[in-house]
């Protein structure tokens, strides 16, 4: 099993600007772990702190229990896949892959043998003598992975490596990355602003915003039980109803909102009187008349038919709403400018604090 990575109260300041504001977490050995957040949230800084291109202003990064303070990028058991891959354009594919071995003083024949093995692993056998420019985008991607794996790193760091690829290739590479991670057992730390990538590939995801951790959870927890308003809004679509908690009812709570008193799961155990937001996923909002407890009237604004489902945009009592209706073969006819009665089950909605300060 590969080594774990621990961040211990890590703070990174650039002059006046604090990019990372005291983050502690442990990434387990052999885990596929993603940092998810919008650009400027500090996720790339975290990657540089782990890879050794930066040393934290405060706190400590440990890999396999060893403090990495003062240890340069060339001495750490990590390897990085750069956003633009950064393959060496003047070296052949095999020389690229074997560069890390060349550094370690491995002989020429042995290097070539290892490069060929890795080319087999990434399904590019016999392509070692080509130059990187002769390969397609997806192939270059795989060469970058092989180059990083050649040094047998404990931790592989990936900085949005799929963002330059087209959609189809990106989806294919997601599965491939996941597969390579499973086969090699190396700890993967993946940086992305694309929630789809984070959710489909990761064992766990850390959601970041403005240098703080919002939530660290499995993809499913993240989607079903967001811990903050930011996480609820950033991961997937959510309809939000802001208000004040008026009553607690076991694992549920009632929030007074412009759409009425709405009951939802109080998975964070918020207290009565707190400002809160009720979050309901578009696919969990139901067209009313099905006897759901949280009912209100919205006005239909537009609709778009996607085949397997139908998206409705509506104006609700507290802003715009999005409803996703599954095409079960019995879609009702909608009055284009009429009233749209909506509702949801209390178990299908969650309550998060209104302020983003739950980290």
């Amino acid at each position, binding site marked *: 099993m590969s080594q774990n990575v621990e961040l211990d109260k890590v703070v990174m300041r650039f002059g006046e600007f604090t990019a990372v504001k005291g983050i502690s977490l442990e990434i387990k050995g052999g885990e596929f772990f993603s940092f998810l957040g919008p650009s400027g949230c500090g996720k790339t800084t975290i990657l540089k702190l782990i*890879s*050794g*291109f930066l040393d934290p202003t405060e706190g400590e990064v440990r890999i396999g229990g060893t403090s990495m303070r003062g240890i*340069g*990028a*060339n*001495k750490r058991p*990590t*390897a*990085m896949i*750069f*956003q*633009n891959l*950064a*393959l*060496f354009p*003047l*070296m052949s594919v095999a020389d690229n892959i074997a*560069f*890390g071995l*060349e*550094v*370690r003083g491995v002989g020429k024949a042995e290097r070539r043998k290892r490069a060929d093995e890795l080319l087999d692993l990434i399904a590019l056998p016999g392509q070692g003598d080509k130059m990187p420019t002769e390969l397609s985008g997806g192939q270059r991607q795989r060469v970058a992975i092989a*180059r*990083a794996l050649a*040094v047998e790193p404990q931790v592989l760091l990936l900085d949005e490596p799929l963002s330059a690829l087209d959609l189809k290739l990106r989806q294919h590479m997601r599965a491939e990355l996941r597969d390579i991670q499973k086969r090699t057992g190396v700890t993967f730390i993946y940086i992305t602003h694309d929630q789809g990538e984070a959710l489909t590939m990761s064992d766990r995801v850390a959601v970041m915003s403005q240098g703080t951790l919002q939530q660290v959870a499995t993809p499913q927890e993240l989607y079903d039980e967001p811990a903050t308003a930011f996480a609820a809004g950033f991961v997937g679509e959510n309809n939000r109803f802001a208000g004040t908690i008026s009553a607690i009812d076991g694992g549920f709570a009632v929030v007074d909102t412009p759409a009425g008193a709405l009951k939802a799961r109080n998975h964070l155990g918020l207290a009565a009187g707190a400002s809160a937001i009720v979050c309901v996923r578009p696919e969990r909002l139901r067209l009313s008349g099905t006897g759901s407890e949280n009912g209100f009237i919205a006005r239909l604004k537009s609709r778009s038919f996607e085949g397997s489902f139908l998206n409705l945009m509506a104006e609700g009592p507290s802003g715009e709403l999005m409803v996703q209706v599954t095409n079960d073969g019995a879609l009702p006819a909608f009055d284009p400018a009429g009233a749209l009665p909506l509702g949801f089950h209390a178990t299908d909605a969650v309550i998060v604090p209104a302020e983003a300060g739950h980290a």
Partner: protein
Amino acid sequence: MRDLYRRFGGGLTTLMVALVVFWIIMLVVLPQLLMIDFSFRPNLPPSKIGGPDDVHSWANYATLFRNQVHLTIFFKTIWASSLVTFITLIVCYPMAYYLAQVAKPQRTAQMLLLLVIPFWINEILRTFAWWIIFAYAGPLNGLLTALGILDQPFRWMSGNGVVIVGMVYAYILFMVFPIYNALESLDRNQIDAARDLGSGWLRVHRRIAIPHAKPGIATGCIMTFMLAAGSYAVPALLGSPGSRWFTEIIYNWFFEGGNWNQGAAYAMILLLLCLFFILLMMKLFRVGLADIAK
């Protein structure tokens, strides 16, 4: 061509083309052809020019190989110019790397300005500045004797050393800028990737930065070598009779010996040497003309 006519109209295009043709033929090709013709003719009094003695021969070229002093100076010029080129490269590569990859953009702009400012001053004046520095009673000797490093002033300008220093200084820009331009286009991530894979700084330069900068290095070396080999002011001012440059001999043939034909032959030999050096550099660095023209 048709494109130019469409864009600028008949009159203007014809004028532009005519000027370019005039420039190339009258100012570049003809004078060179004239010099080549000169170099193959004997040096005759005006009355005999065009007469039976005025025939083409290799005699002027052969002179160099029969004159031991001139030949020595010729080879000295080759190795000294090579040395100047090499030292300039050693001085300029770290500077160019710092400017292109390490310094922040604002600092780069400041440093480039500082590098350029001295070159607003005439080359002769700049060379004189070095003459003053190295003078027998100059500040360098003053400093070294005051510090007790030298017992008595040293006669710096008695050999090739000071000539080489002066040339390195004079041609720094011609080396820095091509290398800087080349290194500026090097993706920082490639350096980081090499570091990340465990590479030390020496290897980063040897395997990543220098190969990337090769066209710039070749251009810088070619320019520096040609300027050094063809320099007149620096060796004339900072040199001594014992450190004469080949250009000084050419000058002597033209203006003191009054033998233009002999001078033209020597100048052609220098030109051939420089052409040979360019081809050698292109071969050595495996770059094409197109890379250098960038």
